[in-house]
């Protein structure tokens, strides 16, 4: 446990022998004090063993509130602090920093939540609420008296980033990282950089050729000496941990290993493929997916009427939300038994962009647009909607309680799409469709190997999931891994590039110092107690955090005596991979494993205090 603090370190008055706890009860401006008798609480706590001072104050988190704590550390030699206030999510860090400013180890702090857990949920019984608060604060003090000073973990980091995926997001991330002075390894399994850009026609909102954009990015990448591009290789395994990842790639028959301090995942998306017969798909001359149509549209010669696979298309219908916003019981389930209930976000604008191009170039082709809603949410996207409408496209909004039905051509009638139209007061309408274009959605790419070897979190929609949708939008919970683009969710090109930039910035920030500091709440091993039973290995969800290693038998007290010179297996902890979940602690019978900052004797003392109240 290099670097992890031990009890009895040379900290100002922090030896367990002379514990002086300061207890601070916050009113939270009435949020707590209107229900809990804060004065009585502080009064009672002042009498509690090891408590040097107990005070109450309207807002402990305010500067004067924090100043009270600092003053008590100075004048009253307080060396453990308990604040009874709001949720630790809100202000635990605030008070830890206050301790640090006062010269104390910031982990000699215990936060007790008497707002969410007491005053807000027991409004009607003030006396009982005060009793509960008292029990919780006592438990907090019991834990505080047993706290050890801890130090943040530090791991050495490889100054190199591996970017997986050579599409627009991957290339953007690689360029941003190279620009920040970091060497980059960019892995693309295809034969050329560009990804999905290589198969698109013109892209909104600029109308540029996608292949030209891809070329531009690839040229920029090639011009960067610090980006090593790996083309056509298959990644066989990725493992390691923050600062020390290893990517194994098979390139032209030989294995290569690349070490990297951080990973940027830009593995992209797949197009939804309609099932056999879904809205008439299968008849390639009459039904196309939007990506197919988009790709072909650019090379079709302009004329009076659009021609598709040798046929004149006088009526061109677009159908939105194919493979997206599916409803259970209505759409057939996907391979995993679920439906794609999310919005793919890009198809509305892409379909209208295509419609607008058709209207410009083929004035004799009537365009019909059948949608659930139009979701042209991005800057400049609405213009395509308005433009297509003004050029004469007709819009329909199909009722959501039934799927539109594709009717093949019969007799004099062209092929049609039949549904009830919300805009026509729920009348059933049939839209002629010489060609039906299905605006297919975005689905997660199959990256099972990567997900399993890195234990990546996956959301209900099967896309990779960020640690927090608002506050940590491009990080996953696993340290050192960042998400760039559509591996995370459906995105437009500009959003994917923005996400790539954010992921690159996060990775660069992480590797800005030679060492990375991590939370100290990881598992501690008392090696002399370990029997090498291996039960903890089965429980651990974080690959590589625990492993069995051989140790010479001599000196291992707990294991049964064996023949001289032999070794026995014991557990070793990789602190950088441990997430401090405690699952291993629960199954360790000899109590060889403990969680720093959450020792079992601390829990026992807390439980005892609550039981005694």
């Amino acid at each position, binding site marked *: 446990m290099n670097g992890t603090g031990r009890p009895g370190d040379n900290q100002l008055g922090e030896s367990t022998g002379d514990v002086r706890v300061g207890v601070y009860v916050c009113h939270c401006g009435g949020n707590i004090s209107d229900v809990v008798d804060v004065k009585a609480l502080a009064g009672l706590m002042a009498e509690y063993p090891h408590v040097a001072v107990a005070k109450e104050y309207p807002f402990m988190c305010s500067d004067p509130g924090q100043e009270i704590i600092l003053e008590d550390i100075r004048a009253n030699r307080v060396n453990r602090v308990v604040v009874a206030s709001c949720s630790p999510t809100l202000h635990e860090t605030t008070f830890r920093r206050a301790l640090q400013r006062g010269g104390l180890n910031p982990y000699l702090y215990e936060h007790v939540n008497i707002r969410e857990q007491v005053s807000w949920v027991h409004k009607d019984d003030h006396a009982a609420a005060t009793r509960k608060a008292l029990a919780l604060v006592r438990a907090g003090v019991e834990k505080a008296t047993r706290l050890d000073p801890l130090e943040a973990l530090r791991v050495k980091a490889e100054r190199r980033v591996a970017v997986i995926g050579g599409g627009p997001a991957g290339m953007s991330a690689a360029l941003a990282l190279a620009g920040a002075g970091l060497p980059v390894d960019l892995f693309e399994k295809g034969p050329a950089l560009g990804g999905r850009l290589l198969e698109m026609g013109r892209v909104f909102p600029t109308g540029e050729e996608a292949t030209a954009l891809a070329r531009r990015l690839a040229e920029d990448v090639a011009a960067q000496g610090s980006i090593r591009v790996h083309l056509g290789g298959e990644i066989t395994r990725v493992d390691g941990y923050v600062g020390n990842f290893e990517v194994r790639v098979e390139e032209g028959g030989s294995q290569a290993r690349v070490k990297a301090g951080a990973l940027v995942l830009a593995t992209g998306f797949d197009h939804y493929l309609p099932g056999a017969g879904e809205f008439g798909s299968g008849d390639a001359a009459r039904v196309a997916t939007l990506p197919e149509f988009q790709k072909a549209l650019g090379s079709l010669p302009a004329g009076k009427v659009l021609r598709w696979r040798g046929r004149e298309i006088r009526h061109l219908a677009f159908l939105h939300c194919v493979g997206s916003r599916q409803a259970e019981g209505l759409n057939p389930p996907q391979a995993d038994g679920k439906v794609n209930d999310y919005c793919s976000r890009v198809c509305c604008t892409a379909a209208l962009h295509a419609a607008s191009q058709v209207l410009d170039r083929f004035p004799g082709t009537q365009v019909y647009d059948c949608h659930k809603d139009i979701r042209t949410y991005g800057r400049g996207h609405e213009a395509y909607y308005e433009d297509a*409408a003004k*050029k*004469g496209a007709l819009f*329909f909004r199909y009722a959501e309680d039934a799927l539109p039905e594709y009717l093949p051509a019969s007799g004099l009638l062209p092929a049609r799409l*039949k549904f009830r139209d919300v*805009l*026509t007061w729920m009348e059933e*309408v049939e839209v002629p469709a010489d060609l039906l274009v299905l605006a297919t959605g975005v689905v997660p790419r199959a990256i099972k190997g990567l997900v399993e070897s890195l234990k990546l979190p996956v959301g209900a929609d099967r896309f990779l999931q960020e640690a927090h949708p608002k506050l940590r939008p491009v990080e996953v919970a696993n340290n050192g891994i960042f998400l760039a683009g559509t591996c995370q969710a459906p995105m437009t090109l500009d959003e994917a590039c923005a996400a790539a930039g954010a992921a690159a910035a996060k990775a660069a920030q992480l590797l800005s110092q030679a060492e990375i500091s991590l939370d100290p709440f990881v598992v501690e091993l008392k090696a002399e107690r370990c029997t090498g039973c291996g039960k903890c290995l089965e429980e651990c969800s974080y690959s590589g955090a625990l492993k069995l290693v051989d140790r010479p038998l001599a000196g291992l007290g707990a294991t049964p005596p064996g023949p001289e010179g032999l070794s026995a297996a014991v557990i070793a902890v990789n602190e950088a991979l441990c997430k401090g979940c405690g699952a291993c602690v629960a199954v360790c019978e000899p109590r060889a494993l403990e969680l720093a900052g959450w020792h079992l004797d601390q829990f026992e003392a807390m439980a005892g205090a609550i039981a005694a109240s």
Partner: protein
Amino acid sequence: MSILVDANLIREIRSYGAFDISACFQCGNCSAVCPLSAGEASFPRKMIRLGQLGMEDELLSRQEMWLCYNCGECTSTCPRQAGPGEYMAALRRWAVGRFESTGLSAWMFRSPVAALAGTLGLALVLAGLLLTARPRHDFPDWIFKLVPYDAIHLVGMVLGGVLALGLGASVLRFVLRALKARPGLLKKGWKEHRAAALALHHELWTMRRQRPEAGQGSWNSPWAVHLAVLFGFFGLLAATTSDFLFIFLLGTKIYWPARVLGTVSGLALMAGVSAAILRRWRGADAGVRHSHLSDWWLLAFLWVLGFTGFWLEAAVTFRWTAPLHSWVLLLHTVMAMELVLLAGSTKLAHAFYRPLSLYFHFLSGGESPSRPCA
């Protein structure tokens, strides 16, 4: 039975002056703000949708387009500047064209060049007829030296017959379509017809559905202007008809009743038409901000007719005998005849379709609006 969408109709209606209608995205703001849209008679949104889907029969059998008084509130509220008010006007022109048999109307509504050429061509034909007809009996007045009175009389009678036939056929088509779509109207009893007739009578002579609330209107509100034109027009029609039929009984003295009626009505017409021209010229409100050639055509005809009417009155009264005044009579006569002849093919056709539509609307239980047009 589902509706097979036909996109040609909306393109056709667009060519009648609804040039921005493709921008409509069916939000329904227009129907929400329309003071006259209520219950079953819901417009303009539904009418736009019927057009977008190509439901020609449905549109032609409905009365909504004729219930609209073109106040322009929908157009000023439209979030997409699709001009729903213009659409309603275009729909009326399109319907006039569809009910008319010759195709002349559709041709003139859709092309300004055609409208001008048609008007001018017809005027030349009429002038030719009037100038060459030499009947046996002639009125011995100097003013009829160029265009004989009997020629006017004869040509007028013939034109009246042509008009009656043509217009009759159009109106019959309109009525049959309405009745086919609403067979319930045929089963209405005498009492219901009486109530509908009373409501129509009340509406026609007061235009209360368009009347501003007390204290809200002005001398040139659309309601006041239209009412002045309406009374002026009918007064002149009555005066002219009696002049036409009973000339030998009444003579041409200025104080004779038909002449007095004509003078008063002419003043009302001139005032109303002048105000209407002024409003359109200024684009006073959303209802007149966009003008179709057919709007100007009707106003121009009415104004010139009124003006030349007073000119002739003065000429007769003060015995101006210069040849110029005979030419003015020719102009006046030709334009009056043309107006009557084209009554079923121009904007004037609303004078036939609107009252009938209102009648059907009242007969089917249509409520009067709770609030008037602004």
